């Protein structure tokens, strides 16, 4: 599903990755781990062409990632960065905007599914009527997963999905992602949380 073939990532003189290869199979629950600054996020972003490669190639499904194919690849991926600030005032607006980029027109149809996702992640649907400033960082992170699941993409790229979560919330997220995996989604997450890593089926260690 995802093949990384002999890639190097350089930022000026800093060589973050050199001649690195790995692969993630369809339906894997993969985790990219390693110490801080070893290139975990850069590798994750490279899967959607957001990190420049000094050499090598990345294949996503049937596409070799390049300027012509990156937009097609991105229609098949869900990407959640670690830190994200939203211009939206309310959660409802955010849901609307995310569904819009997913080309989902009927927002009403999605509401039951969204509520179901929120419950699975230990959240209440009352969250939907709140302002973005009223919800905590942990709630925001889980809510994003619930919303992004509506896009029903094949490949999930998540940067530290359990950062800033307590143990109970972390378990909700792990169970939710495993359920997505069982439905055939391929999940690649960056994490240095060893408990999270222990639940993954494919560990890509950059150390």
């Amino acid at each position, binding site marked *: 599903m995802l093949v990384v073939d002999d890639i190097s990532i350089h930022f000026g003189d800093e060589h973050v990755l050199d001649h690195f290869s790995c692969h993630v199979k369809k339906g894997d629950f993969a985790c990219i781990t390693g110490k801080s600054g070893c290139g975990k996020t850069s590798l994750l*972003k490279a899967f*959607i*062409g*957001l990190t*420049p490669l000094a050499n090598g190639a990345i294949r996503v499904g049937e596409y070799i990632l390049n*300027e012509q194919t*990156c*937009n097609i690849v*991105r*229609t*098949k*991926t*869900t*990407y*959640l*960065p670690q*830190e*994200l*600030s*939203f*211009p939206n005032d309310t959660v409802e607006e955010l849901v609307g*905007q*995310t569904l*819009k*980029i*997913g*080309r989902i027109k009927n927002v009403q149809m999605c509401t039951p599914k969204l509520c179901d996702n929120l419950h699975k992640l230990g959240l209440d649907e009352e969250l939907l009527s709140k302002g973005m400033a009223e919800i905590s960082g942990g709630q925001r992170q889980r809510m994003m997963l619930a919303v*992004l699941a509506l*896009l029903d*993409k094949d490949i999930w*790229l998540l940067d530290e999905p359990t950062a800033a979560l307590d143990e109970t919330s972390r378990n909700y997220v792990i169970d939710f992602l495993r359920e997505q995996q069982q439905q055939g989604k391929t999940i690649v997450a960056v994490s240095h949380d060893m408990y999270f890593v222990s639940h993954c089926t494919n560990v890509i260690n950059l150390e």
Partner: protein
Amino acid sequence: MATIDISYLSLGIGLLLLLIPIYYIWHYETKLLKSICIGAVRMVIQMIFIGVYLRYLFEWNNPVVNCLWVFIMVYIAAETALTRTKVRRKILMMPLIVGFVTASVLIGAYFLGIVLQLNNVFSAQYFIPIMGILLGNMLSVNVIAVGTFYSTLQREQNLYYYLLGNGATRGEALQPFIRQAIVKAFSPAIANMAVMGLVSLPGTMIGQILGGSSPDVAIKYQIMIVVITMSASMLSLIIAICLSARQAFDGYGRMRKIFKC
């Protein structure tokens, strides 16, 4: 009724009022002291020169000279916007010039040719002041909007990459940033428009009344000035952002280096 002239001595006495803002700028250590002093000196010198230029432009009343004059104004406006926004020349200079020229030509021609129905739209008496007022407004709106657009994009690039990574086109991913830029640049103008005539009596209208026009004529001109400046500002802004975005991102949609060091 002739307008009362202001003698140079009286003008000097009038300029003393600037001591009020200068004192508070100094007192509160705002670091704007040098800027306001240079700005005031520049304003006086530039206005003296413009008085001389305009006298000749009005005497010659030549369409080619008038157009050339407007193009010089466009170039200076683009240079000023470039300096204030600190965006790299390669990214922003041409888009600004194209935006300013297109908006001035379209909106200026609409107003002078269709609304005022002038036989000669290049008549210096109308062409030069209208282009001047359009460019002045386009400059301030573009400085605020383009600056906001690129600085917000730089600061919140995770949001841009989030939208891109979930399948948005580059245009869709840039929408929240364009929205913010428009809100910031146009909110003061919209607020001002809403209280015009109640709280504020704007410059064009005051100028015309002082120049001897009747209030009836002055208000019609003022309404049109607000409309054309707002339309030209929006048009030039959208052109500048859309064209500069072609240079600001690579083929993958990744941000290039936007700001000068």
